[in-house]
């Protein structure tokens, strides 16, 4: 297995004494769509900063496609494309110049840079806005501009630090499609996000860091498989006078037309509907109370926060 990214005993202590990373070990396989999750202040942005040479590590090693960041910095940097959390382009420059200039910093000739800029701006729906000053773009467009900029030198590893923050759901989903397509073309993607639905939808592998330490690192399906119980919200077709007792399915009344039920994975959901039907209760729709990954995430972070 080729590793796109290999972190060993990565540590970072800032000059004010705050230790953001306490010896992080992490491998990301080539071609992976990898979620790096964690609560605010967990060390995600510090990790990304170190990978992209924006933050100096205190100790440890980082290799990108086998290139050691300390010894082969140029080769390592050439492999990485970064979409940062905050807008970091010149707000007064036209959109196409921002992308073309970024290619130039990687030594890509201007004619090739123009062609690539057109390709990515078209794919991301920004071609019509190419001569517009960047600050005039909407929030979603600015996010897509940063993706186009990160891809223009055709990196093998794309790092996305909360790429859809503040983006409406329609654009978010179109960005997901775009990122899936990029990943399908062989680009390894490392994603951090606070939208756990996003991580669950896109990523095949997940790592969770908290307080500068890795607390989980596994396949997404393996993690989701650990969820033994899910909470569903049931919307009823008719108002309910009294909540029936259903063996194995504790029901809670939210309002006269809404119930909440905890379903153990071992029991399944079909017997629930059979019992509800037996009581004359018609369910018009149901949904998960919270995202499945969210439940696991909160549980893991809570466990880590508890004193041993």
């Amino acid at each position, binding site marked *: 297995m080729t590793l796109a990214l290999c972190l060993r005993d990565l540590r970072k202590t800032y000059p004010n004494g705050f230790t953001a990373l306490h010896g992080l070990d992490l491998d990301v396989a080539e071609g992976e769509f990898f979620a790096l999750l964690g609560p605010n202040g967990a060390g995600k942005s510090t990790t990304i900063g170190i990978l992209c040479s924006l933050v100096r590590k205190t100790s440890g090693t980082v290799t990108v496609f086998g290139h050691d960041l300390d010894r082969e910095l140029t080769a390592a*940097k050439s492999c990485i494309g970064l979409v940062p959390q905050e807008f970091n382009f010149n707000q007064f420059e036209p959109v196409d110049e921002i992308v073309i200039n970024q290619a130039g*910093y990687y030594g890509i000739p*201007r004619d090739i840079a123009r062609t690539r800029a057109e390709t990515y701006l078209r794919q991301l729906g920004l071609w019509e806005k190419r001569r517009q000053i960047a600050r005039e773009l909407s929030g979603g467009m600015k996010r897509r501009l940063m993706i186009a900029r990160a891809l223009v030198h055709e990196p093998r590893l794309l790092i996305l630090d909360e790429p859809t923050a503040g983006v409406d759901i329609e654009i978010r989903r179109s960005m997901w499609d775009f990122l899936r397509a990029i990943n399908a073309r062989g680009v390894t993607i490392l994603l951090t996000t606070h939208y756990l639905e996003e991580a669950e939808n896109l990523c095949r592998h997940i790592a969770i860091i908290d307080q500068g330490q890795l607390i989980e690192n596994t396949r997404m399906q393996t993690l989701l498989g650990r969820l033994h119980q899910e909470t569903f919200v049931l919307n009823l077709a008719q108002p309910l006078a009294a909540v029936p007792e259903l063996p194995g399915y504790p029901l809670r009344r939210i309002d006269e037309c809404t119930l909440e039920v905890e379903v153990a994975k071992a029991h399944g959901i079909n017997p629930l509907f059979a019992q509800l039907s037996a009581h004359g209760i018609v369910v018009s729709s149901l949904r998960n109370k919270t995202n499945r990954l969210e439940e696991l995430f909160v549980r893991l972070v809570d466990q880590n926060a508890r004193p041993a």
Partner: protein
Amino acid sequence: MMPLRAQYIAFQTILIKEILRFTRIWIQTVLPPAITVFLYFIIFGSLIGPRLGEMAGIPYMRYIAPGLIMMAVISNAYSNVVSSFFSAKFQRHIEEMLVSPLPNYVILLGFVAGGLARGLVVGAVVTAVAMLMASVPVQHPLITMAMIALTAVLFALGGFINGVYARSFDDISIIPTFVLTPLTYLGGIFYSIDMLPEFWRQVSLFNPILYMINAFRYGILGVSDIDVGFAFLITVLFIVTLFGHSLWLLHRGVGIRG
């Protein structure tokens, strides 16, 4: 190491970006020095100058022309880099360069070349104004061009260092206001230091801008208060020192890396 051709493309990219930046806002960057110099010529050249007579055997309006051109070059080369680099830090788009494989010296050369370009463009515009106001024949074109280019490079480097250390917009105006402007005015733009009492003449010799203005004046008018060769030596020494310091700042990531 990035291949040389790639480094050249990267350098060219920064330079084009810098030139586009200051030409896009030419009303703020190129026009004001032309107006300022025009006013200097009107007031000191046309109104007061004839009463002053000659300076070092040269009509006063013509005598002050090289200093006024140099003043515009110094302030523009400096302010181009300090404002561009600080703005890149402030808006965080300096990160576009930091994440790329660009060597530090290419980043530095790109910004300095941008400062040099603005210094030369403004210098050319101001020279055109000077030519309109006073006949300014160039006696030694090579010395003139070499000194104006070296001075622009030196002050572009100064602007870069200021930009690295600056933490607020106030910090980028302190040095130009409290250091550069006084040193420039006292650097012999409007007078020959031979007119000063001996003590103040000796004090003036510690002002590096004096050497640049006089060497430039020698290039244009053929007169200078100091040795031109020594002026070139001083200028080159300053450039080497500031270039080394700038590279060290970039290597250490002062103000730009966490």
